[in-house]
Every structure is written in structure tokens, then in C-alpha cells.
């Protein structure tokens, strides 16, 4: 089948019914959804502030079916947005109004676990936690653990380069994926990476991680598994101010200690998480740190003593070490459910994802508090302190007119401050649609042009998840009067808005 040339912009689909009929001919019954009742629940992912119904939803079961869908859409010039578990927090899987939403949830098989090589080959719809569960009998696990690990799927983890509590020591998704099979928009199948330590040529696998579904559709992933450390100790420390807790984090990192996880929650987040998890958090604390140390028994004990004295010197009001494995897991469960648990505090929340140099934690938290009271919108802070990856959750009520707009404005100000202190606008959630504007703060025209060129190299027609992750130059130009070359923008095929 012909792929439209790059010069041709995606042709508007005249007839949704025709497309659905063609899709139904390619797929088994029940795999194509097109009625308004069926499309509505697919109109958003984990970021429900942004909603858009697609033309159709397809739920294939095998690679051949995905290929058939991609070839058809390619030929018809129909955009395709891939989606896994739909837990993303930046709107990366927000459907395209004139496009097909390609749901990969039925690719849920763990193909093999190789305990000798410490790898697992899985389909993209496999849940993050399910990989660790399958590896557990061999004493192995998959290290990146986003808080949504119970539900989020590995395909989305790769697409968004997901992080998690334990990424401080063990790296992001990109550091734990060995190979991936992807389909290009024209249906062509590519193998990226491999099990060897290095492969010649460009590292396209690293490029794939965090590409937000713009380059290809992931149909298989090989991940690295790690041996469970023989010992893991979790320390809980409370503080009477988030700023002081932030300073304590900086002191641990400065001492050259790399904890397996180093997390922080402020008072609001502590109380919400405690209400769900009954983890035993002190609900009167202004901030708490969870610091996990792992390794051999000796390593743990030694590090624990050093961290304890650093925290005490930093003004910790209470220090507690989880007495047993059950308490350790309970303390983590509170942290991992903190985002949705905040749903108890307000009808809606807006989750931010900035990252900053760890030495500036205190300053940024202070600035957030000032902005929060300026806007009259409470902000709960839950974040990967050790990485300097902030997750301010702005609490709002979408039912109140104008409140979402004010929330977005506040969010953008927080991110702008992150960039100002030398940080970035996203730590692990991706850009999606949510942070397109903020991308203009982060990058100049030269970088953005290269991003678009990479997209063109993989998807010349610009049909895969168009309009996400990388803002158009025009958008940025509007935002900050960026110079546009002679009134002519490069990459005329890219959607403008």
C-alpha cells in the first residue's frame, strides 16, 4: 500500500463509517468500537482534564492485526494514537479527533523469563508489576517502579520513559530495557537494541524510550531483571517544615550515599495517603522522608547509621526504621497511592512533574508555597526527592468556572521556576499535550527543529500521535515571539495549532 509522501498533509477522512467498515473487515468482532457510548470512556487517559473522542477505537490481539490497522490508516492518511493502560499523566494517549485510538491492552502475555540471562520478554500490554511478579520465583524483579505500577503497562513505560521510586539507584526505564520490537506507521517491523552490552549503529532504543508514541508502535519489549537485594531497610523521618526536609535530602546526596529510594511528602499528601493506606504515617508532620537502603546486610547497616545521623543533624523530629517487611511494604503503599489518594481532598487535582537540581529543593518548595497562596489553590507535594523530581499536585475543582485555567497558569509558573533554577519541565511523566507550552521554555528553535527531523525520519507523514511531545515552532513563536525564518516554517507537514 502507498504511504502518502511527506509533502502531503494528512488527508481529512471524509467518512468515519467507511473507515470503521474497513477496520472491521481487518479485525475480529468486538475489536472496533465506534458508537458515542463506546468512545466516551476512551476520551482521556490518566489526565482527565484533557478529553477528545477519537473516530474509532481498535483493540487488536496480535501483531498482524496491528500491522493491518497501521497500513490501512497509512493509506487513508488517518492519524493513529497508541494507548496501553491509559494511566499516563501528561495526556500522551489523548485521542486524535480524526484518528484511530490503537489500544494495546490485549497484548498482555509474558513471553519468557530467562533467569540465567536475567531478562524477560513481554508484550507491551503487560503491567509493570506483573513482570516483577513473574520474576519473583527466580529471586528477580524489574526495577523501575512508577507509582502506578499496579496498573500501568510496559509499552507505555517505554514510550514515556517512566521513572519511579527506585530510579534513583537503578535508573529510568531507558536504563532497564534491552530491546524492543516496534512497528512503523507503514507496518514495517523493526528490532531495536539487543541483549549484548553494546550494539553498533545509532542507539535507536534509547531514542525510542520517551518518544511518546511518535516514532513507532511498540509490540514487544525485553527488559533487564535485577536480583532482589538480600537486605532492604526503610527509614521514615519527619520534619516540621518541607524546606528543612529538602535540605536533609541534599545533605544525604552530598554525602555520596545513593539510597534505593528517597521520597518526600508534605503534610497534605501525608494525610491523604494515610487515610487510604493506614501506613502509620504521622499525620501531624509537615513533611516526611522515606529513605530506602538496600544491599548486603553490612552495607545496609552502615548506610543506615550514616543516614540517621545526617537526618538528625538536618533537624528530623522523628526517626523510625520499618520493623519488618510488612511494615516496609505498608509504608511504601502509602507513598505509591498518594496521587489518587489526594482525590479525597478535592474533586480534581493537576499533577505536575518538574525536575530540579537537588541542592535547590528548599528554594523551589518555598516558591511553590508562595505561588499556591497567591493563587488560592492548595498544592500537595509528593515526589522523588532523591532525584530532584517534583510532583506538586494542585488541588482544584473543575466545576468552578475558571479554576482549571488558573490551575494551568499556576502549573506553568511552577515549571518556569524549575527551569530557572536549572531544572527541567518533566522528570518522568512525559510532555504529552500537557507540557507542550512548557517545552518552549526548555528548548530553543534549533533543538525543536532536530526533534521534528527525528520524527520525520520515522514517520514522514506525521500520522503517529501527531501534535504531542514536541511543540510546533509556531506555537513557541507565539508564546515568546521566537524568530521564524522569513515567515516560513520548516517541516510544513507538521500540524500547527
Amino acid at each position, binding site marked *: 500500500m502507498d504511504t502518502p509522501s511527506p509533502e502531503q498533509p494528512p488527508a481529512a477522512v471524509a467518512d468515519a463509517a467507511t473507515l470503521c467498515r474497513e477496520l472491521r473487515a481487518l479485525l475480529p468482532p*468486538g475489536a472496533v*468500537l465506534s*458508537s*458515542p*457510548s*463506546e468512545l*466516551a*470512556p*476512551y476520551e*482521556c*487517559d*490518566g489526565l*482527565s482534564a484533557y478529553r477528545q473522542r477519537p473516530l474509532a477505537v481498535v*483493540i487488536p490481539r496480535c501483531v498482524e492485526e496491528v500491522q493491518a490497522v497501521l497500513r490501512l490508516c497509512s493509506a487513508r492518511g488517518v492519524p493513529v494514537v497508541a494507548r496501553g*493502560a*491509559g*494511566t499516563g499523566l501528561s495526556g500522551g494517549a489523548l485521542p486524535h479527533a480524526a484518528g484511530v485510538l490503537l*489500544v494495546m*491492552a*490485549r497484548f*498482555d502475555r509474558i513471553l519468557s523469563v530467562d533467569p540465567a540471562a536475567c531478562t524477560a520478554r513481554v508484550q507491551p*500490554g503487560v*503491567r509493570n*508489576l506483573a513482570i516483577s511478579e513473574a520474576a519473583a520465583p527466580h529471586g528477580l524483579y524489574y526495577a523501575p517502579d512508577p507509582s*502506578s505500577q*499496579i*496498573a*500501568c503497562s510496559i509499552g507505555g513505560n517505554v514510550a514515556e520513559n517512566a521513572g519511579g521510586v527506585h530510579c534513583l539507584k537503578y535508573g529510568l526505564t531507558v536504563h532497564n530495557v534491552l530491546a524492543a520490537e516496534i512497528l512503523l506507521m507503514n507496518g514495517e517491523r523493526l528490532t531495536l537494541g539487543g541483549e549484548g552490552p553494546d550494539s553498533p549503529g545509532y542507539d535507536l532504543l534509547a531514542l525510542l524510550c520517551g518518544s511518546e508514541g511518535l516514532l513507532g508502535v511498540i509490540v514487544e519489549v525485553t527488559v533487564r531483571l535485577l536480583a532482589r537485594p538480600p537486605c532492604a531497610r526503610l527509614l521514615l523521618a519527619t520534619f516540621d517544615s518541607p524546606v528543612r526536609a529538602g535540605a536533609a535530602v541534599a545533605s544525604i546526596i552530598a554525602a555520596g550515599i545513593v539510597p534505593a529510594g528517597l521520597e518526600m511528602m508534605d503534610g497534605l499528601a501525608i494525610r491523604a*495517603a494515610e*487515610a*487510604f*493506606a493506614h501506613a502509620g504515617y504521622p499525620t501531624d508532620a509537615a513533611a516526611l522522608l522515606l529513605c530506602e537502603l538496600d544491599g548486603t546486610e553490612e552495607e545496609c547497616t552502615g548506610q543506615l547509621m550514616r543516614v540517621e545521623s545526617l537526618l538528625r543533624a538536618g533537624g528530623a523530629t522523628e526517626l523510625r526504621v520499618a520493623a519488618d517487611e510488612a511494615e516496609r511494604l505498608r509504608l511504601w503503599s502509602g507513598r505509591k*497511592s*498518594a*496521587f*489518587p*489518594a*489526594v*482525590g*479525597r481532598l478535592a*474533586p*480534581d*487535582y493537576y499533577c505536575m512533574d518538574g525536575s530540579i537540581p537537588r541542592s535547590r529543593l528548599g528554594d523551589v518548595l518555598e516558591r511553590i508555597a508562595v505561588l499556591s497562596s497567591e493563587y488560592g489553590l492548595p498544592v500537595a507535594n509528593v515526589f522523588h526527592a532523591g532525584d530532584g523530581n517534583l510532583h506538586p499536585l494542585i488541588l482544584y*475543582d*473543575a*466545576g468552578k468556572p475558571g479554576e482549571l485555567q488558573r490551575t494551568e497558569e499556576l502549573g506553568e509558573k511552577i515549571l518556569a521556576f524549575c527551569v530557572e533554577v536549572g531544572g527541567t519541565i518533566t522528570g518522568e511523566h512525559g510532555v504529552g499535550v500537557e507540557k507542550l507550552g512548557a517545552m518552549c521554555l526548555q528548548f530553543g528553535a534549533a533543538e525543536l527543529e532536530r526533534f521534528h527531523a527525528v520524527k520525520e525520519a520515522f514517520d514522514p507523514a506525521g500520522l503517529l500521535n501527531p501534535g504531542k511531545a514536541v511543540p510546533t515552532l509556531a506555537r513557541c513563536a507565539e508564546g515568546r515571539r521566537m524568530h521564524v525564518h522569513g515567515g516560513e516554517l520548516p517541516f510544513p507537514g507538521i500540524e500547527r495549532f
Partner: protein
Amino acid sequence: MHTTLADFIATTAAGEEASEILRKCVHCGFCNATCPTYRLLGDELDGPRGRIYQIKEMLEGAEPAASVLQHLDRCLGCRACETTCPSGVEYGKLLDTGRELAEQRVQRGRWSQLQRRVLRWMFPFPLRIAPWLRLAMRVRPLLPRVLAAHVPPVLTPPGAWPEARHARRMVALAGCVQSVATPATSAAAARVLDRSGISLVTAPAAGCCGALSHHLAAREEGLDFARRNIDAWIPLLEAGAEAVVASASGCGLHLRDYGRLLASDAAYAEKAARVSAAVRDLTEVVPLPAAGASPQRLRVAVHTPCTLQHGQHLGGRVEALLRATGCELLPVADAGTCCGSAGSYSLLQSELSSQLGDARARALQAGAPDVVVTANVGCQLQLAGRCTAPVRHWIEVLDEATRVL
């Protein structure tokens, strides 16, 4: 999640309740991870988050397609999602409202209507079930697997029900299906409680708890069953009975809801609340046996019914009781997952139900147990047809283990 209710429901009690529940949902999708039907079907429409969305659409005034009824029908009502939800969304209550709305707006097919009417006519009444069960047992080998799986090959004889000799009394919910299909349960409960100084009595006028009708969106019919039971039990409670004891966790969960369901019925609200407050699951009233007394060290796999663990939050109690008698408890994978029985679900959604039942049976038998135990008649029947090990109510095992004391 922000919701703007449509005029038809905005000012009603059901509308206000639904709106409150929806406000808590932040659309994170954690619930899908533990939803049995989402895990089988991989379709957002067949998971809690998508069902909530479909219900929200109806509440906001969208006209539901027939598909909405189908996706709500496929929900087991196991409420594993509630246990998983960090935001505290009361999905079960929202589902009730959603089902009622869908039932009003979508014309159900004739066959589906007929099936439901037959179920409601037969299952709440022991006298109507009994002859059919006897017949089904006789022709069991000839029945299609879907039906045969629900028919016990033999009935365990109930044994003697001790005389009411103690001053301490509790009222047993005799129930409907349980009294016919697994009569050993209530009798064993009576013997165990008798040995700990409590006489278990029944009220002849009481009957089905009403859950079956309620979950088939026949709300009023369900409430009539509730009123009948309340009338039968209030005199016993007034005469000093300490509790209404349910040995089937599904029924017990529904009894606990009488107060809420009848809150707007002036004549019954207070009495209903009183009965609900007196309801106890059998696991709550059986004291921990003193010492390990199991005649042989039984290897037991426990299937905790969803209505016990997700509905009544009483998971772990069966295990504790059996461990105290000396039984060895085997680990069971995915122990939070529904067996697919879910009341009438096993008959109305037999294909999904079978897949779930088979998966549960495999998980329960992985450790080669001597016996599989559960705490609800529906689960017991669902698993009995699929396990090679005997499947019993836990109280029977406890009864035998403590009898020698």
C-alpha cells in the same frame, strides 16, 4: 472527576450520592489492574474506570446505547476495585444506580428478560429450587458443562442441629439456595456455636435476603424480601438475640445494607438500621479454637469470597480460625480475584464466569490441598464443579476439627 448531572437526576438522593462518589474518582486506572473482567477482556469498557465513565455519561444526560447495558451486565460486582482504589470511590453503590438507569433506558432483549425473570422466580425460594436440584443431580452427566458445574454431585448430609439450650442466642439467616444445595453449612455453624455456649436459632418466616433481586435491578422486589426478614427477626432481637448471623458472605453483605436501602421507608428505616447493626458474618462470632485439634493435619486452600474480603473487609479471618485448629494454609495466587460465581452471574454470563472459575480452581489446587474451603454458597458451588479436591464451607472443617475436643 467533575460531573454535571442532568436535570432528571440532579436533585434526587441517588443523583446526589452518585455525584459525591464521582467527585472522588481521579481516573487513575488503578482499579482496572484488579478487575477480573478487564483482565480477561482488555477493554476499558469492561473495567471499573470505563464503567464509571459510562455511568457518568448517563447521569450527565447522554442516551445510553445497548452496549452500556451489556458492559454493566458483565460487571461481577466483586468490588475488588474498591479495595484497590486509593481515592475511596464507592463503586458498588454507583453501579447500583447505573444499572437501574440503564435498565430504564435500554430495552433488554426478550431472552435476557426471560432468563432474569426465571432466576427471580426460582432461586429465592427453597421449595422451588429443591425439585429442580434433585432432578439436575440425577441427570448431571447429561447436562451441558455450564450447568453441570453448578450442580453438586452429592449433598453432604447436614447432621444434627443442636437444641436451643443456651441463654445466649443468635439468629441464623437460613437463606434460600444454601438451605437446599449446601445444608451442611448452617447445621455445622449451629454445632460450633453450641459448643461455645451460643444457640443458633432460625426464624421460619424469614427467607431470601433479597440480594438476587437487588442485583437484577428489581429493587422493590428485593426490598420486600428485606421487609419480610426484618419483620421476622425484630421480635427475636427484642427477645435478646445478640446478632443475625450470616454464614454466606454474599447474603451477609446485603443484610448489612438493609439500613441504607430502606432509609427512606418511614415504616422500616429504623428497624432496618437495627437489623443491619446486628448483622455478623460467621467469622466474627466463632471464637478462635483454643488449641490445634485437627484430627489430621489438613492442607487447606482458602478461597475468600469477594463479598467477605472486598465487601465486608473481613479477609484473613477464615485463615486465622483454621490455622488455630492446626490446619496448614496453602498460599493461593491472586487471592483477591473473583471465582466468577457472583450470584446469578454464573448463569447469565456463563462464558466469562467459566473462565474465571477455571482460573480460580487452578490457583486453588496448585498446592494440592486436601480440601478447598470458602465462605459463600455461590463460590462453593462454582468451585465444587471445577476442583478435584472437595470444596466445603470452612465451618464444616472447623466443626469436624473441634468435635473431638
